[in-house]
């Protein structure tokens, strides 16, 4: 059933966020420490485990696929939600600091990913129809 996939996703997210909150409390900081990242790792492992045993039904995969296809629309809603006016009103100091940090970080990307085999991402064979949003999206040429 589709809901099984969605529920699996929800359970992973809640567990990850819970661990992230606990880590935050343990470290004495008011932030969720990597909750979403932990949830993602958990989901990757659980899916891997279930798929190998053939326990992840196609409808359940569709439930997961739907939400990953909704990802870009949600990101666009998120961008429409940003406090853009405040960012620009923050004055030259904020703009210069933000822009410089991004540009310098960009320069560091090739340095740190050096030594990486430039493996192109494997074409998703089994998920191509499920990971809906991706099929109609091509790279910038």
């Amino acid at each position, binding site marked *: 059933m589709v809901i099984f996939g969605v529920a699996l996703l929800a359970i992973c997210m809640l567990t990850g966020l819970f661990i992230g909150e606990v880590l935050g409390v343990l470290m004495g900081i008011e932030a969720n420490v990597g909750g979403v990242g932990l949830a993602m790792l958990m989901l990757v492992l659980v899916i891997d485990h279930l798929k190998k045993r053939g326990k992840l039904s196609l409808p359940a995969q569709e439930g997961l696929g739907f939400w*990953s296809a909704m990802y870009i629309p949600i990101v666009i809603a998120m961008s429409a939600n940003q406090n853009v006016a405040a960012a620009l009103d923050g004055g030259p100091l904020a703009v210069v600091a933000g822009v410089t940090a991004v540009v310098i970080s960009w320069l560091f990307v090739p340095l740190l990913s050096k030594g990486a085999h430039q493996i192109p991402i494997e074409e998703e064979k089994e998920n191509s129809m499920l990971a809906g949003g991706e099929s109609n*999206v091509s790279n910038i040429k």
Partner: protein
Amino acid sequence: MFQILSDVFIDNPLIVSFALVGITMYIAYFMSDKLTKGRIHGSAIAIILGLILAYAGGVWTGGEKGISDISIFAGIGLMGGGMLRDFAIVSTAFGANFDEIKKAGFSGVASLFIGVVLSFVVGVAIAFAFGYTDAVSLTTIGAGTATYIVGPVTGAAIGASSTVITISIAAGLVKSILTMVGTPFIAKYIGLNNPRSAMVYGGLIGTTSGVAGGLAATDPKLVPYGAVTATFYTGLGCLMGPSVLFLVTKAIIG
């Protein structure tokens, strides 16, 4: 008549947001195809349109949440809010390859620490250049340059003034917005085309919304790798900002 229409919109906020985002994406993909012949990706244009709407909403209402401060568009706040955003980010892990994450694990973790310190140092240096000389203000602005959450968390912890906290949030917002808009344009020059560089990218830049939006507009397959590191960045920043980074800044500035 107009009143009735507005009531229908206000009563069904999330549904309005689906329609509005769908229309925005349709326009964006149309523009991408016809005006740029596909050179600028549709989702990059859609994100820019979203930011323009956010700016218009912010100026119109004086609020903090972009277009969603206008009551008939409140659903955008729900659709693009933290809950569904995180849910969708987690779901992208469905397409990720665990072996790739393991392989890039070390450079991912290294990039996190380098990323937090790098942005912090840049922020402090620029705040200093703009005439701030006290350790509390410098640290807060430096932390805000990491992300717009680290800034206020650090500032509140070490007792910064509200003006400085506002600047730190603005610096983080500028970073996030530039990352969303700029990533697809810079990607090919910095080798951002494989899982490992995406993980490094997430760790270096760290703003989850910026990285997630920027990678989505570059190549959606890279999103889970960038997001998995970026989501640790704010936590690490909040941990280091009020502690190590503040103490070091204080020791240097005096």
